[in-house]
C-alpha cells in the first residue's frame, strides 16, 4: 500500500468532481464484466493484468458468479470535455439475503446504473433493489447489456424499463460489456447525470460504513463513504452505535489495489483499518466519527443484523466438533450476521444451531466451512424462528423445531415476507397455485410488459425456506425470479411433527408445519426413511406423530439374510477388505436407540431437494 493513486489526490479531492454510484443488476446480467470494462476504460487496469471479474474476490463468488461482499473502487476519469473526475464504483451484494447490506451500499451513492440483460429483461431481485434505490433518491441510469447477443430484444426491454422507472425508452443506454460497446457513453452519462456529493467539509466528521471485511493480515477493513468533515490517518475514531473508539492505523482507497492516503474528505469513498479483528466491531450501517470533536448525531439507518433462518450444523465425524467451532469463530470475524450456539442432538451428536439471513447465506456458510476448513457436515432442514405463547401466557422463542413445546399453546406466530415474483405471463396460473398451496395471500399483480408479470404475495417465510424456490423454478422452466423481504409475523395454526424410529423420536427430523400439512409431511418423511434405513435384525417401525398421536407408520422389515454366498480362495481377502471397510463405515453410523442409521440416510432425509443456489 505504498504507491500513490493516479488522478486527484484522495483527501483533498473537490467533491464537485466526485461521482458515487453502484450497479444494480441480476446475477449473470453482466455486472462484474461491466465493472471490469470500466476499470479498463478509465485506464486503471490494463488489458494484460485484467483478471476476469476483478472485483469479485472470493473463490465461491467467482464460481457462483455472485458478489457476496461488496467493495469500492476509485476510478480517475477524464471526460470527453477534458474535465477530471473521480468515480467511485461501489459494488453491491446481489442477493435476496443481503437486502440490508444493499440498502447501505445504496445509501453511500448518489446514483445507480440499472443494468439489465437485453435478452432476459428485469428480474425480481433487480426490481426490488431498483425500488430501494428510488426510495433513496438515487439518480438511476438505465442500461441494457449484452446487446451483442443474437437473442437480445433491446426495444422490448427498453420499453419495459421505461415503464418501470418512468423515462423514455430512448433514455435507456445500450451496452455490451463484453465488447466494450457503449461503455464510454455510459461513463459520460455517469458524470453528467449523477449529482456530486453534498456535505459540510467543516462539520464534525461523519462517514457511513457500507461494508466491513476481515483480512487475515490486516484485520478488519472497513469501507466508508465520508458525508461530512474529514477523516485522516492518526485520527482516533468512534463507532457511533457501539460507542467504541479505535486508533486509525491506515486510511486509503482501492484503485484498484489498496493505496494508503493521508485522509478522506467529503463525498470520498475508501477504507479504514483500525486493527480490530472482528467485523462486529465495525458494523455495516454504523456511522464513523472522530473521537475528538466528533459528531453528536449519527447518519441514521443503522440496524442490527437479524438471523431469519436457522439450521443445525453437525460434523459428520463427531471428533471434528472442535474444528467446527474454530471454523465458525473464524467465519464470524467476516460475517456479522452469522450467529451460532452449541446444541446437542440425540441423533447427530454435538453441533451448533446457526442463524442466517436466509437460505443463500446458509449455503454460503456451509460451503465455506466445507471448502475452506475441510469439514464434512450434516445440516438439519432449515427452519424459521417461532414465537409461541402458552396457555399460561408464557412466551417462548423457538429456533429449533425439536424444542417446540408439546403443551397447550394459546398462540403461535411465524415470520412472514412480502415476496415478489417476476415471470412470463404463461406461468401465472401455475405460480399462483404454488403460492396458494404455500399459504400465500395475493397482494397484487402487474404487467411489466405484454408477456411479463410481477406478482406480489405475502407468504410465510417457512414456506419459502422449504424448497419454494426449486418448485418455482420447475414450474416456470427456470424463467421466474424471486425476491422477498421480511414484513413481520402472523398467527398460524402450526404443529410439531415428530418422527419416531423404533419408538424413539429423532430430534433432527422434527418439523413445525401447518396443521393441514402435518399428515403429508409425516407420510413423506416416513416413506423416505423407509428407503434409507438399512434393515436391522429386528423390525423397525417408523412413525410420524403429533404430540402423542401417531399419524402414520411405515415398517422396515427385519433383516433375515446377511451372509456371503461363497467364500473360497480369492473371496477371502475381498471379504476381509470389505469387513475392514465396513468397520470404518461403522464410525459413520449413528445409533438411534437400538437402530443403526447411516450418516447418508440423515443427509438424504434432511435434504429437501437441490440447494437454493443461484437466485
Amino acid at each position, binding site marked *: 500500500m505504498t504507491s500513490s493513486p493516479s488522478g486527484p489526490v484522495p483527501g483533498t479531492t473537490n467533491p464537485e468532481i466526485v461521482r458515487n454510484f453502484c450497479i444494480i443488476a441480476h446475477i449473470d446480467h453482466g455486472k462484474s464484466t461491466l465493472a471490469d470494462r470500466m476499470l479498463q476504460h478509465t485506464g486503471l487496469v490494463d488489458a494484460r493484468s485484467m483478471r476476469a471479474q476483478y472485483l469479485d474476490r472470493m473463490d465461491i463468488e467467482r464460481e457462483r458468479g455472485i458478489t457476496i461482499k461488496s467493495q469500492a473502487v476509485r476510478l480517475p476519469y477524464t471526460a470527453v470535455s477534458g474535465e477530471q473526475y473521480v468515480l467511485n464504483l461501489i459494488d453491491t451484494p446481489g442477493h435476496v439475503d443481503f437486502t440490508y447490506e444493499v440498502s447501505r451500499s445504496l445509501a453511500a451513492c448518489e446514483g445507480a446504473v440499472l443494468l439489465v440483460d437485453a435478452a432476459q429483461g428485469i428480474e425480481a431481485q433487480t426490481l426490488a433493489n431498483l425500488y430501494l434505490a428510488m426510495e433513496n433518491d438515487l439518480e438511476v441510469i438505465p442500461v441494457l447489456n449484452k446487446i451483442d447477443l443474437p437473442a437480445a430484444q433491446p426495444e422490448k426491454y427498453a420499453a419495459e424499463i421505461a415503464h418501470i422507472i418512468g423515462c423514455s425508452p430512448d433514455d435507456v443506454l445500450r451496452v455490451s460489456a463484453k465488447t466494450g460497446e457503449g461503455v464510454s457513453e455510459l461513463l459520460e452519462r455517469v458524470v453528467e447525470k449523477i449529482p456530486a456529493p453534498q456535505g459540510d467539509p467543516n462539520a464534525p466528521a461523519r462517514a457511513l460504513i457500507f461494508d466491513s471485511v476481515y483480512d487475515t493480515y490486516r484485520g478488519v477493513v472497513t469501507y466508508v463513504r465520508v458525508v461530512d468533515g474529514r477523516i485522516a490517518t492518526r485520527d482516533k475514531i468512534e463507532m457511533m452505535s457501539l460507542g467504541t473508539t479505535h486508533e486509525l492505523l491506515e486510511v486509503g482507497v482501492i484503485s484498484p489495489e489498496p493505496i494508503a492516503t493521508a485522509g478522506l474528505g467529503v463525498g470520498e469513498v475508501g477504507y479504514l483499518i483500525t486493527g480490530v479483528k472482528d467485523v462486529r466491531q465495525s458494523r455495516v450501517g454504523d456511522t464513523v466519527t472522530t473521537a475528538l470533536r466528533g459528531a453528536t448525531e449519527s447518519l441514521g439507518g443503522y440496524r442490527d443484523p437479524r438471523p431469519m433462518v436457522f439450521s443445525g450444523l453437525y460434523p459428520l465425524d463427531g471428533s471434528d466438533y472442535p474444528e467446527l467451532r474454530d471454523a465458525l469463530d473464524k467465519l464470524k470475524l467476516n460475517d456479522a450476521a452469522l450467529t451460532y450456539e452449541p446444541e446437542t442432538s440425540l441423533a447427530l451428536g454435538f453441533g451448533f444451531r446457526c442463524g442466517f439471513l436466509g437460505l443463500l447465506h446458509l449455503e454460503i456458510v456451509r460451503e465455506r466451512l466445507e471448502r475452506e476448513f475441510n469439514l464434512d457436515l450434516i445440516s438439519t432442514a432449515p427452519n424459521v424462528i417461532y414465537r409461541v405463547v402458552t396457555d399460561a401466557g408464557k412466551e417462548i422463542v423457538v429456533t429449533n423445531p425439536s424444542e417446540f413445546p408439546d403443551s397447550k399453546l394459546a398462540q403461535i406466530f411465524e415470520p412472514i415476507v412480502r415476496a415478489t415474483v417476476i415471470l412470463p405471463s404463461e406461468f401465472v396460473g401455475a405460480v399462483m397455485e404454488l403460492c396458494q398451496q404455500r399459504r400465500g395471500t395475493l397482494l397484487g399483480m402487474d404487467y411489466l410488459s405484454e408477456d411479463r408479470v410481477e406478482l406480489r404475495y405475502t407468504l410465510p417465510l417457512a414456506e419459502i425456506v422449504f424448497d419454494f424456490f426449486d418448485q418455482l423454478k420447475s414450474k416456470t422452466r427456470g424463467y421466474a425470479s424471486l425476491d422477498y423481504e421480511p414484513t413481520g409475523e402472523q398467527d398460524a395454526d402450526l404443529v410439531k411433527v415428530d418422527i419416531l424410529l423404533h419408538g424413539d423420536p429423532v430430534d433432527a427430523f422434527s418439523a413445525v408445519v401447518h396443521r393441514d400439512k402435518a399428515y403429508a409431511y409425516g407420510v413423506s418423511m416416513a416413506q423416505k426413511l423407509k428407503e434409507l434405513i438399512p434393515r436391522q435384525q429386528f423390525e423397525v417401525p417408523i412413525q410420524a406423530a403429533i404430540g402423542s398421536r401417531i399419524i402414520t407408520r411405515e415398517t422396515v422389515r427385519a433383516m433375515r439374510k*446377511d451372509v456371503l454366498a461363497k467364500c473360497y480362495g480369492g473371496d477371502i481377502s475381498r471379504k476381509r477388505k470389505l469387513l475392514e471397510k465396513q468397520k470404518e463405515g461403522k464410525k459413520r453410523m449413528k445409533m438411534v436407540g437400538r437402530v443403526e442409521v447411516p450418516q447418508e440416510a440423515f443427509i438424504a432425509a434432511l435434504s429437501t431437494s437441490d440447494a437454493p443456489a443461484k437466485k
Partner: protein
Amino acid sequence: MTALSLYVHVPFCASRCGYCDFNTYTAKELGSGVDQENFHEFLIREIKNASEQLGNRPVDSVFIGGGTPTLIGASALNSVLESIGTSFNLESNIEITTEANPDSVDAQMLEQLHAGGFTRISLGMQSAASNVLKVLQRTHTPGASVNAAKLARAAGFDHVNLDLIYGTPGESDQDVRDSVSAVIDAGVDHVSAYSLIVEQGTPLARQVARGEIPAPDDDVCADRYEIIDTMLGAAGFDWYEVSNWARPGGECTHNQAYWLNSDWWGIGPGAHSHVGGTRWWNHKHPSTYAAALESGSSLRAGEETLTPEQEHTEMIMLGLRTRAGLTADCLTDSESERVSGLIGRGILDSAAWGAGVVRVTPQGRLLADLAVRELLG
C-alpha cells in the same frame, strides 16, 4: 509339515453365463500366446516352479476349477495331475476334484478322469427348472446334471457334488423343492447351494439395472435357504458350512482348507494363494500369465502379508461360517464378552458356547456376516 492344498484354475468356458463374474474366457475372448490346446503346459510349468519353492511338501487335496476344466479334455487334466504327483508328495487319502459342466462330460471322459486319479467330481447343476436356467443363461437341460452325476457314480466316483443356485428371479419355492429332490435322487454325497448374487459388471447386473429382471429378494432367499436345509437334512445331508451340505464322510477336504486358513497354492491365471501368512494372486489374463511364464518373470499381480490382526479377522470370518465353529480360546476377551449378546439375539448357539465353541444357530447361519462384524466389534 502340514499338508498343502493345490487349486488349479482353468479359465475357459464354451459360453459365458449372465450372472458369472469369474475369471474365465470364451475362445473368442482369448488373446494370443495361449489357447485351450496348450494351456495345460503352462499350468505344469507353474506347478514345477511351486515345488521348487516349497520343496516336496505333502499335498492332501487338489481342486481343478474354472471356468470349465473339462473343456481342455481328460488327457490334459490327467497330465496336470501327473505333474502334481511328480512335483509333490501326495498323501494316500488325497482328495482330487475337478469341476465339470453337465454338458461337457460323458461316460468315457469320466472313466478316463477316474483312471487318471481324480476322486471327486463337482457339477454345476444350478437348478432343475428350465425357466431358471434360462435366466441364468445356462446352456444345459434340467436333466443333464442328474445324468452326469449318475454317470460319474457309474464311472467309480464315490464323491460327487452338485451345485445349486437359488433366489433367481422367476424361481418359485416349488422350483427349489424340485431341484433339491432331483439332487437327492441323483445319489450324490455333497451339495453346495448359493443364493444368486448380482455381481457388478455382469450382464445380469445390467439387466437388473435396466429393470428387465428384478433383483433377488433377501427374504425370498432366506425362505429358500430354509427349504433347502430342511429337505437336505431329512435326506441325511448335514451342513458343514453355510452354503455346503454333505453326507457323513462327503465333506470336501479342499474347501475346508480355505475355511481353516491352511496353506494353499493357486495355479493358473488369476489364482489366489495363501502360504505362510502371505496372500498373492497371479496375473489375471491367460495371455499375461502365459507371457510371464515364457519370460521367466514373476506371475504375481499382487500380494499382501497379513498382520496378526488381519489373520485374526480372517479366522473369525471363516470359522463362523462352519459347523465346527471356533473354539472359545480363539476369541479376545472383548470378543468373548460380546458372545452373550449374540446368543440373546438368537445368532450364536448357547449350548455350543457352554461347551467352549462359538457356532452360529440355524437362524444365525443366514446372518453370519453380521455375527462376524459384531463379534469383531
